[in-house]
């Protein structure tokens, strides 16, 4: 199979998402070997996915969580009955927020551990973009319900995920675990 530049551009998203079949993937890779323009487009598009997939792009205004909680507290039916009830709810919210901060800080300070029992997988397209989380052990397709952490996720290439010791997710990357 031979593909043109236009066909490569049309399939670039699917290629990066691992959504093209093996023969099309091979044809695109063959084309890329001889085409500087398409290689530049692919590299740049991958960079876009990786940059915007980084948690640092995901900023919320300072105090957002606190104001959201306060708004909820004001509107929860049980919390308006008594002042004491309101105080208990507020204290619980602070406790929950506090415990989250503890959990979060422990995530940051803990050295990264990957699973000892995971299989490395076979035939993972190295160019495919995958999602990993800071304290996870597996790499995933976007949207996989097994993604461990929804706050500190980032998008990287499969080859980089493998290099960092992430293993294919047993659910969304099952087809690479059949060996």
């Amino acid at each position, binding site marked *: 199979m031979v593909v043109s530049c*236009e066909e490569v551009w049309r399939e670039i998203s699917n290629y990066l998402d691992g959504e093209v079949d093996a023969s099309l993937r091979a044809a695109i890779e063959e084309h890329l070997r001889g085409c500087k323009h398409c290689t530049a487009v692919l590299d740049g598009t991958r960079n876009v996915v990786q940059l915007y997939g980084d948690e640092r792009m995901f900023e919320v205004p300072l105090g957002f*969580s606190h104001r959201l909680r306060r708004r909820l507290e004001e509107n929860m039916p049980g919390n308006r009955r008594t002042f004491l009830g309101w105080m208990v709810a507020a204290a619980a919210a602070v406790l*929950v927020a506090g415990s989250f901060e503890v959990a979060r800080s422990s995530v940051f300070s803990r050295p990264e551990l990957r699973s000892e029992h995971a299989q490395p997988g076979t035939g993972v397209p190295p160019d495919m973009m995958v999602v990993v989380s800071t304290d996870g052990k597996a790499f995933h397709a976007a949207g996989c319900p097994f993604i461990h952490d929804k706050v500190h996720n980032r998008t990287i290439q499969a080859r980089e995920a493998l290099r960092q010791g992430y293993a294919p997710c047993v659910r969304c990357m099952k087809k690479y675990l059949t060996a």
Partner: protein
Amino acid sequence: MPEEVTSLEHPAKPFNEEMLIQRIRNGEHDLFYELIRPYERRVYSTAFAILRNQADAEDVAQEAVLKAFKHIRQFRAEARFSTWLTQITINEARMWRRKEHANIMEPIVDRQDEEGNYTPRDFADWREIPLETLERKEVRQKLADALASLGEKYREIFVLRDMQHLSIEETAKALGISTASVKTRLLRARLMLRDLLAPGFGGSWSSKPFFAKGTKPW
């Protein structure tokens, strides 16, 4: 307390979520904080993707979360809570925009023909990925500006797919469009952003090389 920490460390586990939702429905309203905590940023950024204004996005995010709380009994277990919450946020943001900013100008790129093939405008070589540049506020601002310049239908898709890491199916469901449309628009969004950003990253924004020339960081 220990129980809370444990459940917060595993917010993605569906059975935890189901259990939480059930308990909230049974009157343990305070648990709603725990349920939405992993999604707060997602709700905000979804609203921001549509409204492109911090203050409006925060108001809409609050409205959406409140609505999810009030209607938690209507949530059906066959959907994912995250998708349901995203749908509510999108609806709230669209309603807000219609109500408050009916005459807002949409960017020019929105008028492009979606079905036609997209031809990249620029073939600047942008091989190296300077992820460290994200530490610089002005670079994050350039990225935010580029995203804001896309038409809404591309912005929404890109934010849900590439920033919030929803699957194609979830994105389609959240926006009420086909998976084929998601793929077409996502391709366009990514290529347009590359066109907008490649010249800057290829030159002026990367004041010094992060990796030796001719090598890749991976």
